[in-house]
């Protein structure tokens, strides 16, 4: 895997999506291009603006959408204090960035691959769709609660076959869950691969379908991260007996270094005795991760 590095990058621009003014909650953040040799879709960066006061110590993790010759792009949603401050960045501001971090989604160009994205979980799939050598083998189902224009869906839809599902009420949600189940069975029948990224309740559903239908499925987890480099042990998830390293089975592994992408059967959500008060729990953040 590529060696990560920590660098200071300037903000090129911050583009609101879907809404404007004080209302805007979705943004594409473009930073100068870092000098990294390589990266893979599914990997992420830790991001901490140089101007942040010490009242907020941690950086925040974001999936890499794209690294081009000129820029590094991430896409984020404002859900709390940190992302609210990110939304105040201006061109020229300096951001400490370390990455690329974590593993990546499996990339099997000839395998029919279904991407399941929930809300802001669409972010890593932008890079995946754009770097996939055979995009005709790629499909996406995207569930979202905010208007479609809030998300970078277009940039995926123009490359591959993508369906979007607007969840406006509980019926929409059950319809979307039904669709996911059907699609996962279809891909199992083609010996396909399923990749999922979104809020934890969504991943839970995908995982249970994966196990029930026996389809090869990877999940990109979201956990709270303090360091991003495997040192703080704050981001762990619980492994199952399927974990490849027998010594680690049933133990806790760092999502930041052993993930964020895991095979569905190798980890479990069930041991979270006291589930993290994630975005999904708080009323204002009900819809997305």
């Amino acid at each position, binding site marked *: 895997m590529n060696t990560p590095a920590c660098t200071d990058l300037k903000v090129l621009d911050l583009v609101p999506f879907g809404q404007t003014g004080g209302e805007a909650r979705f943004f594409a953040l473009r930073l100068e291009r870092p000098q990294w040799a390589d990266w893979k879709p599914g990997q992420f960066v830790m991001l901490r603006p140089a101007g942040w006061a010490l009242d907020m110590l941690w950086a925040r993790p974001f999936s890499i959408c794209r690294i081009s010759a000129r820029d590094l792009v991430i896409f984020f949603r404002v859900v709390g204090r940190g992302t609210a401050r990110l939304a105040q960045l201006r061109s020229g501001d300096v951001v400490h960035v370390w990455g690329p971090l974590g593993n990546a989604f499996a990339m099997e160009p000839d395998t029919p691959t279904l991407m399941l994205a929930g809300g802001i979980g669409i972010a890593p799939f932008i890079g995946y769709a754009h770097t996939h050598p055979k995009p005709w083998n790629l499909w996406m189902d995207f569930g979202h609660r905010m208007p479609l224009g809030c998300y970078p869906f277009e940039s995926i839809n123009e490359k591959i076959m993508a369906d979007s599902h607007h969840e406006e009420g509980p019926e929409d949600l059950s319809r979307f869950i039904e669709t996911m189940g059907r699609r996962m069975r279809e891909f199992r029948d083609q010996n396909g691969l399923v990749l999922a990224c979104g809020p934890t309740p969504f991943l839970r559903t995908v995982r249970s379908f994966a196990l029930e239908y026996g389809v090869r499925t990877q999940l990109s987890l979201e956990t709270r991260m303090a360091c991003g480099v495997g040192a703080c*042990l704050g981001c762990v998830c619980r492994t199952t007996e399927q974990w490849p390293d027998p010594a680690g089975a049933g133990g806790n592994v760092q999502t930041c270094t052993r993930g964020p992408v895991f095979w569905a059967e190798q980890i479990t959500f069930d041991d979270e005795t006291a589930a993290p*008060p994630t975005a999904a*729990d708080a009323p204002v953040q009900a819809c997305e991760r």
Partner: protein
Amino acid sequence: MIDMHVTLPGGLHPLTLNNPVMTASGTFGYGVEFTPYGDLTKLGGIVVKGLSLAPRRGNPMPRVAETPCGMLNAVGLQNDGAEYFVRTTLPKLPWREVPIVANLYACDPGEFGELAAVLAAEEGVAALEVNISCPNVKEGGVIFGQDPRQAAKVTEAVKMRAGSKPVIVKLSPNVTDIAHMARAVEDAGADVLSCINTLTGMGVDINTRKPLLANVVGGLSGPAIKPVALRCVWQVAKAVSIPVIGIGGITSAEDVLEFLLVGAHAVQVGTANFIRPDFVFRLVDDLAALCERMGIEQWDDFRGTLKV
């Protein structure tokens, strides 16, 4: 220019650090996690994540939470066990160039002794740091670090099996009289003291009505606690004649000098490693530059020179 090296006097093999800036246990992994971000041999010393005899899975999630100028953690000492560390991780570390300090965690004095024996036997382990912020399971769960007699017992147990390796005892601030604790472990044979470990704290989420940590309470660290840490180091340094390592909320070269000013020989940097992973490497450079600027030429001329 200042010679950055610092020797912690006392013990059979005094511990010599490349400079006063060490990393704090639990915040720098086993060191290897940080090799992409800097040269480990630049550091004064590396204290690795707390080790126990048997591997530990640690606490359930969530384990960490951000607080104003600080954070809470209740990781629960997840680690692969001392054996694994010694066999697999230690050989990867540049221990000839930078002192590696093993941080010990156990639940009774006997276990502490065994653990000390395993670790002290390793050439690559420069010193042992005893984490006494753990409950004594055999004595009804009283925290070693909150009872001078219990703390002394652990110190003796470790010292007995540590051979010639310096034994650092890490003090908890969650006590009425930290100077009293310090004297108790000094009398029990500690070669060096380090302080402070985290303050016991708690956070809650009013929407979910749940604690922020699965463990309910956890340890508070970061800049928020620096004033408490400075006070503890000052009180401890006055109370004992063995060297003291200052820990708590350090995020700048100025902070390092503050701890030396109140009497510390060296410091450990913890939570600041999460601000950015190259933090501590930059701090070493910043410290050299600051000393240059302030005309500090010898640590001995500066250490403990607070005018009170």
